[in-house]
């Protein structure tokens, strides 16, 4: 990184050099060096995060759990292996409580039977980081990848085959900003969009609301270490 910075400075200085004759004239103010566009060399990050998930199947989750949003916690890591290019993986988990019921003319009627939903998204993605300032304190990043969500629904009074335990795959796109706090630590905020269409069939509450997507939008707050 230092080498890269030095090179940028050298190039900048050489570009602004003047002939010796002109040394008598007042020296023009040197142009400020442009910010480095990428982080230098190899590196890695590891982080923990809290997700604020807004479900695409908002009517369904709002009806069953009382809210169309959920909170998930998780952790992940990334490896930067060439310029700004990085690959990352993360896993999170959310648990929601609700009740079973029926949808009658667009209205959810609870039967009062407790229902617990567990979701475990696993993300594998790649992206690019853009350094915003010379000191590489602010880094924008973006990318896309695959997400695989472990989805469980368990209900009181259910037979084993009435509970749901399955996985669904889809894709995600993300973008965010992280800020270096100390030399080794950073915090960030990220926005994410996940699409997992076809996850819900026609027979449940989601089907009654004509919603089949287990994805949605995510606002993620991260805190981690970097190198």
């Amino acid at each position, binding site marked *: 990184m230092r080498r890269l910075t030095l090179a940028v400075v050298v190039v900048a200085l050489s570009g602004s050099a003047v002939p010796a004759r002109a040394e008598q004239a007042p020296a023009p103010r040197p142009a400020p060096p442009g910010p480095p566009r990428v982080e230098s060399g190899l590196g890695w990050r590891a982080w923990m995060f809290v997700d604020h998930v807004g479900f695409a199947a908002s009517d369904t989750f709002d009806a069953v759990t009382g809210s169309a949003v959920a909170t998930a916690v998780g952790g992940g890591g990334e490896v930067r292996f060439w310029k700004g290019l990085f690959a990352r993986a993360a896993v999170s988990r959310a648990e929601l409580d609700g009740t079973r019921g029926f949808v009658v003319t667009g209205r959810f*009627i609870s*039967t009062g*039977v407790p229902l617990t939903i567990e979701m475990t998204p696993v993300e594998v993605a790649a992206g690019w980081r853009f350094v915003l300032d010379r000191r590489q304190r602010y880094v924008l990043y973006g990318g896309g990848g695959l997400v695989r969500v472990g989805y469980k629904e368990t209900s009181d009074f259910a037979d084993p085959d009435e509970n749901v335990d399955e996985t669904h795959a889809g894709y995600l796109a993300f973008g965010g900003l992280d800020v270096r706090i100390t030399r080794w630590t950073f915090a960030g905020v990220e926005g994410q969009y996940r699409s997992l269409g076809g996850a819900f069939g026609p027979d449940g509450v989601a089907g*009654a609301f004509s919603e089949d997507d287990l994805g949605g939008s995510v606002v993620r707050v991260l805190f981690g270490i970097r190198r």
Partner: protein
Amino acid sequence: MMRRDSRRRVRAACAGLAASLFVLTLDARGPVQTPQTRAGIFDASPRQTNAATVRLRMTAERAARIARANAEGLDYVPGEVIVQFRDGMSQAALARTMSAVPSASGNSRLRWAGRRAVLTSDTMADAHELAAIVGADPEVLYAEPNYLARIGPADPAGSAPLTGGARPNAVPNDPEYATRQWNFEWLQMPRAWDINPGGDPSVIVAIIDSGITTQAHTLTLPIWTGSSFTNPLVPFAVSPDLSPSRLVSPIDLIFFEAGGPVLDMDGHGTHVASTVAQETNNGFGLAGMAYNVRLMPVKVCYGYWEEMYLRAQDGIPGFASPDAGNCPFSAIAEAIEYATDNGARVINISLGGTGQSNAVRQAMQYAIERGVFISMSGGNRAQTGNQVGYPAFYGQQFGGAMAVSAVTRSRLRAPYSSTGSYIEIAAPGGSTSDGGAAGAIWQATIRRADSSTNRLFNGFPAVVEPRFDRFESTGLTGTSMAAPHVAGLAALLISQGITEPSLIEQIIRLSARDLGEPGRDDEFGYGLIDPRAALFGLGIR
């Protein structure tokens, strides 16, 4: 001629004597001495018999008119119309209306039945004609014949003593549950009861039927024995598998005046009530769908024995027709409104006729608007012309009322079960054509042999002096038996917190198991009820 006159005088004297005795004195002589207990037959001991005088609502004259309707195949009470007056009608206007009624001499021919009146003409038997005359009055919103409904089959498919003792390895522990109640096993009731065990006692289900005996009584009732009138003590008892504490706000709207006892002299009402809420997990007899809810007995039907007593009261010798009795729509409409005003959340109507009635329809609307769900038998006319049944037909017009067809234990439409666009749902009604007597719906009710209306080979009645204090397991078939399954399910759903009648109907539909042609059809409606699925609900997935 002289002899005839003297006979008439004797008859009149007998009538007077019978009438004086028939100022039905609830016997003050203490508990009745029940005859010897037969093995396996429950002999109830009356807990209390208060001295009281009860008056009759039904008259022999009216019973005779209804008997004539039965004999002539009429579906209305001759000479009777139900009248709905406009709001705020004055006494003068009422008098004008009355004056238009042939032979009506004043208010004495007008009887209020809840929010409506029943007008009677002595001279104009054709109720359609009478309704047209009365309905022409501008003060009258509508006038219609007082149609008749009938309750279901009189002859049981089978019967057996109620048995006690726990049955091992089963839930519930009622000993006859596993051996007779295929219908509950079939509906997965134990799994439904896991979710809601028998409903909540705050829920009241009104049984509009032939009554449910709510208290042990011994009545002195006049009866024709074949050669003379006698006044035997007739014992009544509460079903041993229905706790009296769960029978609330009973009323008789057909036989006794208000304040009198509610007595089942047919057994149909008790059987229907038992399907809804027979005591369960008490190690005795059979089970009921919503065994914790309370029942409101509303008697609107009378039968052979009531008519026999009425005839004896008037000194009319001879025996009534074995199929005597009926349920006037005026009483049904009044019953629906009474049940609504007295806290019922579910009404079961296991009876029906073929006449359209604004009064009953209006009463149903009144009930549903006040949060009452109504389950009605769809009718047993599939093999006899398949006429549209009322009030079942009105179910499709309301979210919160359902007409129920009957299925057999092979999940086929019962051969008698009416079909049509008004059938909304199906439930077990049983049939002896599918499994013999075991294919019937078995519940506890009064012992049929004690009050049988059957005739012996010589035409003489098998029973002359009935009793109504012994109970047994009885297998009956009909849409009358199917409807209380739906009423019981509605009571469980209300106990689960789903209280709007229209939502109850929708959930019963959505959770039903489709039978017959895919989707709704005229045989099974939306399919067979699935209580467990209705109570369980859907998950997200």
